[in-house]
């Protein structure tokens, strides 16, 4: 039974802490929270809905932490239910679209997503809708006269669900870096044939073998949302990693002590202590005379 009590305490604690946090903002009436829903297509089979929840407190926008947000496709019904998340400290959360979405996706011209905040003790019920048209990007690396160019083609489905190219879509050309994406050109727009191009810099470091991942991105677009397409090309300059920490130096670990220092110090120790041991042995001789 102890376990149950402990769980109860934990839940009570959670509820309590949530209650205390909200306390200052409202006494008896619930406050209004605002939802921001965005769609993110990382790859055709890897799509997310991101949510950010904020509220106004003392004339400032503050994130809403630990509220439950439910997501639906089409209408708010159990048939369209996609899943739910709890917002984090920044008032954000992210939902990986479930398999049920993909089952329906190919038959729809556009997706209507709904995010809802309901049954919350502090905030009024609210929801946000987001209509997305599915866009896809095709990416090619072209080498011509030693000039490297990245080419992207954007397509959407027309009313017959067939794929057609679209002009005038803003596109970012980037490369993947360890902590962020690095732009390799200014913002481009697709032309009449749905094509946009960007030159690839000649001096960009890649990995050990020179591979770089090029990313073409439609950024927070209405009605496409955020769409990415990536391609790994061997276009970078191979970088060699020089691990100085494994070399012998004054600042390296004990295992990498410079040899001369090692010899010198140990030599001195051996000599002085050797003499001392000799002396002690001599002294012990005194006893036997």
């Amino acid at each position, binding site marked *: 039974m102890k376990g149950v009590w402990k769980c109860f305490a934990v839940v009570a604690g959670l509820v309590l802490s949530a209650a205390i946090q909200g306390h200052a903002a409202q006494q008896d009436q619930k406050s209004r929270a605002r939802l921001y829903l965005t769609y993110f297509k990382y790859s055709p089979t890897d799509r997310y809905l991101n949510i950010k929840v904020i509220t106004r407190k003392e004339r400032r926008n503050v994130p809403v932490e630990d509220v439950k947000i439910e997501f639906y496709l089409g209408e708010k019904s159990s048939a369209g239910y996609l899943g739910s998340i709890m917002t984090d400290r920044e008032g954000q959360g992210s939902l990986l679209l479930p398999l049920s979405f993909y089952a329906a996706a190919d038959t729809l011209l556009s997706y209507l997503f709904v995010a809802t905040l309901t049954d919350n003790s502090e905030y009024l019920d609210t929801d946000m809708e987001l209509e997305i048209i599915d866009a896809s990007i095709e990416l090619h690396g072209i080498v011509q006269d030693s000039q490297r160019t990245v080419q992207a083609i954007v397509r959407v489905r027309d009313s017959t669900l067939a794929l057609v190219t679209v002009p005038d879509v803003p596109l970012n050309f980037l490369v993947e870096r360890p902590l962020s994406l690095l732009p390799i050109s200014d913002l481009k727009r697709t032309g009449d044939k749905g094509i946009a191009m960007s030159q690839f810099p000649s001096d960009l470091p890649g990995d050990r073998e020179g591979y770089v991942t090029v990313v073409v991105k439609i950024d927070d677009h209405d009605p496409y949302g955020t769409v990415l397409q990536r391609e790994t090309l061997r276009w970078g300059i191979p970088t060699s990693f020089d691990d100085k920490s494994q070399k012998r130096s004054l600042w390296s670990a004990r295992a990498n002590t410079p040899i001369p220092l090692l010899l010198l*110090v140990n030599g001195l120790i051996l000599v002085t202590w050797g003499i*001392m041991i000799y002396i002690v042995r001599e002294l012990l001789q*005194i006893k036997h005379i």
Partner: protein
Amino acid sequence: MDLVDNPDSTREVGKSRQQIEQDLLRHVTKWTKNDKLWLLFLGVVILIGVFAYYRQLRYGLLVTAMRDYTSWGIYISNFVFFVAISLVGSLVSSILKLSNATWSTPLTRISEIIAIAAIICASIIIIVDMGRPDRFIYVIIFGRIQSPIIWDVIIIVTYLAISILLLYISLIPDLALCRDKLHDVPRWQKKLYEVFALNWKGEKRQYQIIHKTSSILCIMVIPVAFAIHTVTSWLFSTTWRPGWDSTNLGPYFVSGALMAGAAVIIIAMYFIRNSLRLKEYITELHFDHMGKLLVLLSAVYLYFNINEYLGPSFKMVGVEGEHITELFFGKYAYMYWLVQIFGLILPIVALIYKPLRAPFPIMVISFLVIIGAWVKRFLIVIPSLQHPYLPIQDVDESYLHYIPTWEEWAITFASFAGVLLIVTLIIKLVPVIPVWELTDNKE
């Protein structure tokens, strides 16, 4: 210099062998009331220090006045001071001996005892300075030989071992003497003499061994003694702090240490001579010689001092200039000039006059030298830390200056008491003047 061989030096002890033995063993057996009071006093000082250290263990180094900028305080300067003092052992028992100054014979044991006591207390004080004394063993388990601290640990242990050997070798015949002559001593003490006298019978071959080993050690102790202080100076000169970032620091430290060592020996001579009634053995002549030696060593130290300050004060570069200004005219100026005048110029000037080399005046002057030497080390360690390259901003008031707390003083005084206690206890156990060297000289 007539520091070198003076054949007359032992002639003043115009006594028979028996008389000498009796005189020199007297203080070993008797515990006078003064002795006990002295021990009590030292005990109290040490206990206060222990209490202060207990507080430090409990609340951390927060009880000290050290903070992020002044991150080393009087513990470290005191450590440097003790290391300096410990050089006295090699000065007298080796440098003087090798230069055939036989007059120094009665002083060898005192100086070796002081050296050992100082080095032990230096090691203790450095552990006191550690933020995590409980991890001391890590120094051995994880020690990196690239770090000057490890060099210092190695050299301190080595020097301590050599000093103990040096003291012990010259003690063997005297231990045998105690074993044979002292009858009304406690059993443990008797046993001690017996074990450590190593079955000494005064055989010729036994003497040979003693002479051989001690002359090896005499030579070996010099580089080690220089190294101990030079390595200590490297703890500072391997950094970029103004006043530390100097190629001159090693010889500067060593010369200062020899000077302080000579002063300590003079003070010790004075008190041992008076309290143990050894006037015939430690004579005015000894004071006179030591006085001359002190003049010489002070002059050498002065030379290095000038070297240390002239360059930076001429150039006055950035933080180095700030540091020099602070010392010469700023908040440390009064300390700086008092040290230079009383701890350096005065002994040179005063001790040139023979009357001032008489026991009492020279003892007073040596005291000034010692205080000067201690304050000097304060001035070496602390002001340097207060002039970093980047300005000190947005810190609590307490970070801006360094005024040692009572805990730090208590521990520092306890460490002094510790040195005196070790010296006293050893003196109460063995003759403070090498008996056999005097009596054998006569034969």
